[in-house]
């Protein structure tokens, strides 16, 4: 499958939906990808089945605060530097790139990097959405370590950390990001052909594209079109009544109260939010939890609303859809990405299990 320039806006929109409220407006990221496509040609997506036996797939991401990344825009050779550094550190050529997390800019930047190196992109990702940290990845769940972790920066430094597990890698990456100016390129995991099935969710990029296309199709009921593209349901249509935020342990935490409108008039919902939408509650009942996808979108256009862009009075639809990776819905999976991993004393509730 080929992704050409006309499809890029839909891809960016789909990635924003799969970001589940994390990340901000990917304006600059979309420009970066558009420029890479203009220069190097369209993106070629390959399926897991079409990987050769000696394939070596690099899962990568850019790390940094969005306010910093939109100012300190990356260099054209960021991907080249990272991928060359990985090859040198591992003694193996990278043959294919996969985004670590499909959400928001995470689903766009690795594609630009692949293009700049003439590499194809595996139609998959390592989270099935996006989570905020490196331990919350399927490779980590599958026992694959990020060893050696490779971090690079267009100005020169390459940081290689050996014998690190995902927890150490996460702390290192944040520390290095801060030391180097707040935005870095990170090689998270190297995957062999036989590791790919357990370490990735197949079809994530084409899914993002379908999701974005559903929004842009201008259906009469775009929220329903989006829900059906996600194989999810519209939980409620509502107005944002109140947003609360505070910063705790370096991460913003908060909640949003929603008042139902139209057919949902009289309902009161509460969402727990950090970078992402994590839990949906109504009358003390848990309607949906992470790792299932909770999306908050503009009620009229179905455009996703990031947690940082939430504000009183917005007319929204809350859409929930099942987690894209069955591996997350296991005891060890939920320990990493279930509600308790985010500090909520709740059990995971499968979307749609309460009616």
């Amino acid at each position, binding site marked *: 499958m080929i992704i050409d320039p006309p499809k890029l806006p839909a891809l960016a929109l789909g990635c924003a939906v799969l970001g589940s409220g994390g990340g901000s*407006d990917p*304006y*600059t990221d979309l*420009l*970066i990808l*558009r*420029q*890479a496509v203009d220069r190097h040609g369209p993106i070629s997506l390959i399926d897991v089945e079409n990987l050769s036996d000696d394939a070596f797939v690099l899962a990568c991401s850019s*790390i*940094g*605060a*969005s*306010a*910093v990344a*939109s*100012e*300190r*825009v*990356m*260099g*054209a*050779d*960021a991907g080249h530097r990272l991928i060359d550094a990985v090859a040198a550190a591992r003694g193996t050529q990278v043959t294919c790139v996969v985004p670590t997390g499909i959400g928001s800019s995470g689903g766009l930047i690795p594609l*630009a990097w692949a293009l700049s190196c003439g590499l194809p992109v595996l139609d998959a990702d390592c989270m099935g959405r996006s989570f905020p940290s490196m331990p919350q990845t399927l490779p980590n769940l599958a026992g694959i370590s990020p060893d050696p972790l490779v971090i690079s920066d*267009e*100005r020169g430094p390459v940081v290689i950390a050996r014998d690190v597990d995902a927890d150490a890698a996460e702390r290192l990456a*944040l*520390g290095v*990001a*801060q030391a180097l*100016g*707040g935005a870095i390129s990170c090689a998270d995991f190297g995957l062999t052909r036989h590791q790919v099935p357990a370490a990735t969710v197949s079809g994530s990029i084409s899914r993002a594209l379908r999701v974005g296309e559903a929004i842009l199709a201008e259906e009469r009921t775009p929220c329903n079109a989006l829900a059906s593209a996600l194989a999810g349901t519209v939980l409620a249509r509502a*107005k944002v*009544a*109140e947003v609360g935020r505070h*910063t705790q342990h*370096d*991460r*913003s935490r908060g909640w949003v109260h929603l008042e139902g409108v139209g057919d949902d008039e009289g309902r009161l919902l509460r969402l727990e939010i950090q*970078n992402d939408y994590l839990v949906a509650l109504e009358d003390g009942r848990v309607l949906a939890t992470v790792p299932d996808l909770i999306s908050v979108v503009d009620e009229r256009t179905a455009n996703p609303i990031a947690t940082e*862009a939430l*504000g*009183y*009075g*917005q*007319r929204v639809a809350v859409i929930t859809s099942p987690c894209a990776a069955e591996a997350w819905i296991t005891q060890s999976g939920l320990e990493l990405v279930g509600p308790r991993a985010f500090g909520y004393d709740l059990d995971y509730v499968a979307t749609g299990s309460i009616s």
Partner: protein
Amino acid sequence: MTLDLRLGVDLGMAETVGVVLNAQGQVVAKAGRPTTTSVTTGFEAALDDLLEDPFVAADHITQVMVGTTQVTDALVECRGLKRVAVIRLGAPLTTSVPPLFGWPHPLRSTVLGAAAVVRGGREFDGRPIASLDTDSVKRFVTAYGPDVDSFAVTGVFSPFSAEDELAVESLIHTTLGPVTTSLSHRVGGLGLIERENATVLNAALYGVLDGLAACLSGSLATRGIEAELYFTTNTGTLMESGSALGNPGHTIGSGPAAALRGAVHLTGLLDAFVVEVGAKATTLGALVNGYPRRATQGAEIGGVRANLPMPDLRSLEFGAHSFAQSRKGTAQSPNAAGSDGSAKTVAAAHDVLTQAIDEMKVSSDAVPVIALGVGGAFVPQSLPGIASVLHPEHHETARAIGSAMASVSGEAEEIALLEGDHRERALARASARARTNAIAAGGDPAAVQIVDHDETPLDYLAPAVRIRIKAIAPLWSR
């Protein structure tokens, strides 16, 4: 008691409105004339109407404040634009998106003379990304300088550390003499591409206001008015004619901003919603602490995303035409696009307005609404979520009055790590810079006030905040 008078003018699309205020801010005279193709004719007609008033003496008018759409028109029509040489300081970073990437075609080819991305720029904490490549800058300036009208210079994190942009400006002046140069830290805040776009637009618009400023000054001079000329900006404050010529982009969106400021003056309310009901369309804006609330999203101007400080506005698709007078000319009754005059149209417009105000609020508290414009009278007293509706006297001149309110502003941003006294120091630096900027804009140094202080936490940059400070000051009368 001073006899000083201030003249505020709105050169609107359809009408040219002028007001004269006394030193106490009271309306002494007002006049409106149709806007003419040459602009000056309408301006002079309104001016002559005002000067006929026995209380308006030409030699008492000391300041003239003008709001104009001329810059916006030039951009939309791609007319009278300069050719710009674009210099970005940020390599080896930033090269993934070249300057003017994604601009619509007629505008891009009209504006772009040449572009270069050279080594330079800063990190958020002021460290250099790379030391400024002055040799490349000199070569570029020498090679392309003769073929362009102006320069646009954008350095990474220049809103925090402007040194590299200033160094490039002086290199340009040393090499070519006094060529007009737009530096991004004077144009917009964080967001490199949007700020660069705004800076290039600004450089392309140099000169658009020169002709207007010269004509207006001429008209004033022949009538014996020797006054300082100011232009209204999109933050609702003023720029001296001199700096407006250097920052024309800041007049884009100034009309609604002036209306919001005018509403403050007419009602004394500092926090309210302002509804301007025009003939066919309605604009809704929010006042916070006496100034227009700023839009958080970058504005799209002429198909280009630019982070000029635009007011947060909502356009509603109804206007005075949606409300026609009933048989007796008293009650409101609808007449939208030849509809049968059912009460539905009015009710629908009320619903749209109610919901739009609700969506723009920051909490569920009922808010006061100030109604302006030809259809302002149609905004009813009782709408859900609205505490009261004010229909102030002189509301039809709100934009001209807002211009005449005569204050200037200065802004500054910083990013601070939350460790030690970094935050306090960054706060002090940003406050000092905002004050300096307000004074540089013509503000009275004795009366500068910090009016806005905003801190946003930054994720993934272990505990850090982005600090934004805004200062305002009344114009310093000389």
